[in-house]
């Protein structure tokens, strides 16, 4: 009898995870861990979270079969788990509502968050507005330019958005700056971490809060006739992927495939495929895989998708890769954009560029497995935020003709 891999509590997942942070944050992390351990077994907390999921987020999210898209995936049967239909347009809201509720429980009045594409920032600003919390979002300056509309959305929701001008001016620097804010303001402030990475308790807590994706999807698939042959999700830090995998972890027949951003291609060096091209180290509070040079300096990552443009990955993914329970595939910018175009044209669904990496993985896997296969793809977000960038990629903007 093998032990269940589901809902692993941390702080360690094999050799990965832990808590590598300044002493000044230890008390806050202990407090958060303690509050979360109590909340997760408190029926009142669970009921409030369920109520918000149903009445605010719009859960359960549906699954949609996409037969016209699937023709390009070797004729396999392809279902999408529609996290794009959630309020605020991505899976991020699942995590944020839980952490905002927890913030109220520990009596803090201010939340901070990092954001890459802006989805987590928008979700945090939303929860802060709903629960009357002061909200500051750190966003790399390059990302504020790539995702200007999301900056406006956060400001409209009442959050302060601070562009981070240091380092590579992307997600990684936004996390550094959020940690600096937290060290300074920890008495009043809770850090609402956006992905299943960082120091304990974040990897386990964010996973638990995103687990609803796979719990629902597993039931939905069984109701349709059986478990899928594979579950695919995109991986940046890895929160939607770990949430998509967790309830399937003990189903040995289900392949779990995380699609990493390979940018221009892993061999070009311009990519964000951490598990494919990185190695073990410590970044942002936990031990996992990172893109780093021979002396442990973090390397700049590259992806067309701001949400996947991160040189680290959640520690549980590093563990699942190591034990071989999950596979991690590199997907280039070009492959992701081709999948974006296909889903838009064949099914009338504009996916987020992040999620398009998972769609590209499904095209590859479907062609490999053929028409008997059933694939479940998590559509982690909608593509509204990416319209300008996609239109530029496909030369659809008026000035592109000049």
């Amino acid at each position, binding site marked *: 009898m093998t032990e269940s891999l589901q809902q692993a509590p941390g702080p360690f997942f094999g050799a990965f995870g*832990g*808590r*590598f*942070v*300044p*002493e*000044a944050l*230890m*008390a*806050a992390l*202990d407090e958060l861990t303690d509050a979360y351990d109590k909340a997760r077994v408190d029926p009142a907390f669970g009921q409030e979270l369920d109520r918000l999921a149903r009445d605010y987020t719009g859960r359960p999210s549906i699954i949609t079969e996409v037969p016209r898209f699937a023709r390009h995936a070797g004729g396999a049967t392809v279902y999408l788990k529609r996290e794009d239909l959630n309020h605020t347009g991505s899976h991020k809201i699942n995590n944020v509502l839980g952490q905002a509720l927890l913030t109220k429980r520990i009596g803090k009045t201010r939340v901070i968050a990092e954001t890459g594409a802006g989805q987590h920032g928008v979700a945090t600003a939303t929860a802060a507005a709903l629960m009357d919390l002061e909200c500051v979002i750190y966003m790399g300056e390059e990302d504020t330019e790539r995702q200007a509309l999301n900056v406006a959305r956060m400001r409209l929701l009442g959050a302060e958005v601070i562009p981070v001008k*240091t*380092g590579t001016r992307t997600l*990684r620097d936004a996390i*550094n700056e959020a*940690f*600096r804010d937290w*060290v*300074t*303001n*920890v*008495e009043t402030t809770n850090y609402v971490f956006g992905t299943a990475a960082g120091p304990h308790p974040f990897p386990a807590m964010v996973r638990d809060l995103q687990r609803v994706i796979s719990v629902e999807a597993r039931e939905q698939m069984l109701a349709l006739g059986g478990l899928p042959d594979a579950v695919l999700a995109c991986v940046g830090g890895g929160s939607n992927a770990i949430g998509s995998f967790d309830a399937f972890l003990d189903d040995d027949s289900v392949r779990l495939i995380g699609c990493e951003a390979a940018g221009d291609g892993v061999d070009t060096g311009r990519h964000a495929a951490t598990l494919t091209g990185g190695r073990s*180290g*410590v*970044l*942002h*509070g936990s031990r996992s895989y*990172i893109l*780093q040079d*021979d*002396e*442990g*300096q*973090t390397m700049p990552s590259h992806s067309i998708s701001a949400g996947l443009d991160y040189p680290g990955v959640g520690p549980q993914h590093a563990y699942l890769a190591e034990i071989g329970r999950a596979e991690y595939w590199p997907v280039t910018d070009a492959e992701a954009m081709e999948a974006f175009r296909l889903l838009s044209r064949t099914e009338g669904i504009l996916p987020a560029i992040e999620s398009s990496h998972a769609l590209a993985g499904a095209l590859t896997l479907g062609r490999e497995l053929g028409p008997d296969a059933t694939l479940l793809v998590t559509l982690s977000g909608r593509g509204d935020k990416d319209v300008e960038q996609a239109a530029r990629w496909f030369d659809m903007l008026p000035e592109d003709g000049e």
Partner: protein
Amino acid sequence: MSALSDRLDAINDGEGRAALVCYLPVGFPDVDTSIRAMVAMVEAGADIVEIGPPYSDPVLDGPVIQLAVARALEGGVRLADTFAAVRAVREAGAEPVVMSYFNPMLQHGLDRFAADMVAAGGSGVITPDLTPDAGEDWVAAARAADLDTVFLVAPSTTTERMHMTCAASRGFVYATPLMGVTGERAQVGDAAERVVREAREAGAPKVCVGVGVSTREHAAEIGRYADGVIVGTALVRILAEAATPDEGIAALRERVSQLAAGVREARA
């Protein structure tokens, strides 16, 4: 005992004053200048030099040090330059300690890092993002090499953690009196004295205070109750604002002399 605590004993008990600990990152504005600047600080009165190998993601540092280490990394600084700086500081007659984020140590290999430190004449390593409960491997490697391990305590540190941290620290305990990243502050505040007292109560033989210290007056104030006064950002700023490296080193010499006078008037 350790070289570091021997030196602190000689200064605290022998001379009846707090030690002056001065930080600079390696490679800013370039490797040669940074090492010359460290030697100049020793000549101007620094008892201990805290040598900072640059790291790409310095989460505990404020904007001045962030900018300096980013410049150093752009300039191609390597870990070998840190060991060269350790050697130079040792030859100049001060105790060299390294303040390093954890990943560069981990990638170098913890045993190898400790051995290279000892070979270069280093006394100890301060680890801003590694606490003893997360750093058992590092403590073991350092003990085997007879190298000091300096851990940080903060105003938010609980009594239990204070005991655990002080027990794992060797050389001294690094007290940060303010919540926040490195940088100068107008006032260091009452929390400093409380943190030092709590660390002593938890068994720390030596406690040095850093983060926020910039002037002779700060040094004199903290030198009344701490075993050492740590200055960082203010010194980095001097190098950053200088028109030429030589002007920077001259200005640094002047400031370190002032700070050295400050620790000497503390208990006068």
